[in-house]
């Protein structure tokens, strides 16, 4: 990983769409928690900053089962804020470049390197898999031109690498923070996020597919 990058893993949400009243990183997928999967995939990241809110204590304890050298960042106002707030809080006292990463996103292990080590600033997306996603429109080089709730070429999966100085406090979403900085380089990966029970089942299949 190039020097001076921090990864901000956002795990503060209530997981409301999944309907389990449990923050998503604590759900079990194929024998271990989603957090355990994330920590395995991000094991080479030196400055890992995990944003916690809902069920913070339980998330902290789960992380400590695997790794101690992370920085936990509190988003105490998690109920009234969205992912942009967590990304801002996680990035503001970290390294010069921040990579934002949603706790509910699983990236294929062979594509992790692209997410972490591509040059400069970039937005990561994947093939469309869900109807209720945020989509990106891209140009012929794959660079991201815009975000849309309605339609686009790819699904925006979440990871983004950006200079932290460009991030301003927001109570909104990460993609709202990025809109003023487009166009940005695009990086395509294989990934699955977990918003609904249907996504959860797909995530299980996704993980089993790379373990074969």
């Amino acid at each position, binding site marked *: 990983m190039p020097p001076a990058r921090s990864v901000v893993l956002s795990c503060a949400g209530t997981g409301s769409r999944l309907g389990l009243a449990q923050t998503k990183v604590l759900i079990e997928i194929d024998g271990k928690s989603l957090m355990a999967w994330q920590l395995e995939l991000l094991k080479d990241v030196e*400055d890992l900053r995990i944003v*916690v809110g809902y069920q*913070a*204590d339980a998330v*902290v304890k789960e992380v*400590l089962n695997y790794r*101690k*050298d*992370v*920085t*936990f*960042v*509190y988003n*105490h106002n998690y109920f009234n804020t969205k992912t942009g707030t967590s990304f801002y*809080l996680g990035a503001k*006292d*970290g*390294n010069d470049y921040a990579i934002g990463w949603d706790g509910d996103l699983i990236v294929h292990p062979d594509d992790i390197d692209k997410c972490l080590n591509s040059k400069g600033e970039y937005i990561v997306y994947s093939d469309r898999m869900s109807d209720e996603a945020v989509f990106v429109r891209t140009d012929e080089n794959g660079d991201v031109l815009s975000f849309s709730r309605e339609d686009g070429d790819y699904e925006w999966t979440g990871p983004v690498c950006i200079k932290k100085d460009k991030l301003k406090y927001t109570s909104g979403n990460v993609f709202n923070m990025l809109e003023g900085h487009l166009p940005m380089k695009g990086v395509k990966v294989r990934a699955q996020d977990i918003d609904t029970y249907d996504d959860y089942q797909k995530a299980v299949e996704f993980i089993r597919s790379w373990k074969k």
Partner: protein
Amino acid sequence: MTKFIFDLDGTITRSETLPLIASRFNIRDEIAVMTRETINGNIPFVESFIKRVHILGNLPVDEISYLLAEANLYPRVIDFIEKNKEDCVIATGNLMCWVDKLLNRIGCRCHASECTVEDNKVKKLTHILQKENIVREYRNTGEKVVFIGEGNNDSEAMRLADVSIASGLTHYPAKSVLSVADYLIFDEGALCRQLDRLF
């Protein structure tokens, strides 16, 4: 400018200092229960401190001071303080006459509780440090204040600080601390990395 204010017991030292005293003088059980209950916030700090000083105050002050001077410290935290001596401050509720030699060893500015000493014993408590007043003092001079602590008596100071770091190096921090902390860190390297980013 940034001012880093550190709690002492359990944040810079690897263990609480009062139990060390109690262990040396064989009054461990009484102090251990009270220390645990105080850290967890079940006994108000001031009340607990007065009681603990009442129990320990008859012990020879110079022996305690020599004992605590040998306390086991977190080396990377000490290294950070040594490199940034002018920017670092220790705020401890502990008695200055007990921790003076330890503080000399660390070498940065320190605020502590005070007492009068007679015949090598604590005679009277004269000042119990409230750490939030120290934070207020530095903030009033325009400093950005970073507070690093873990016990219940750190929580008001952490609420007032610009950046507050709950340290889990020795104990899992008190709930009151976690409810106001910006960061929670369990590893010395990660703590020092974060401190370096806060100038």
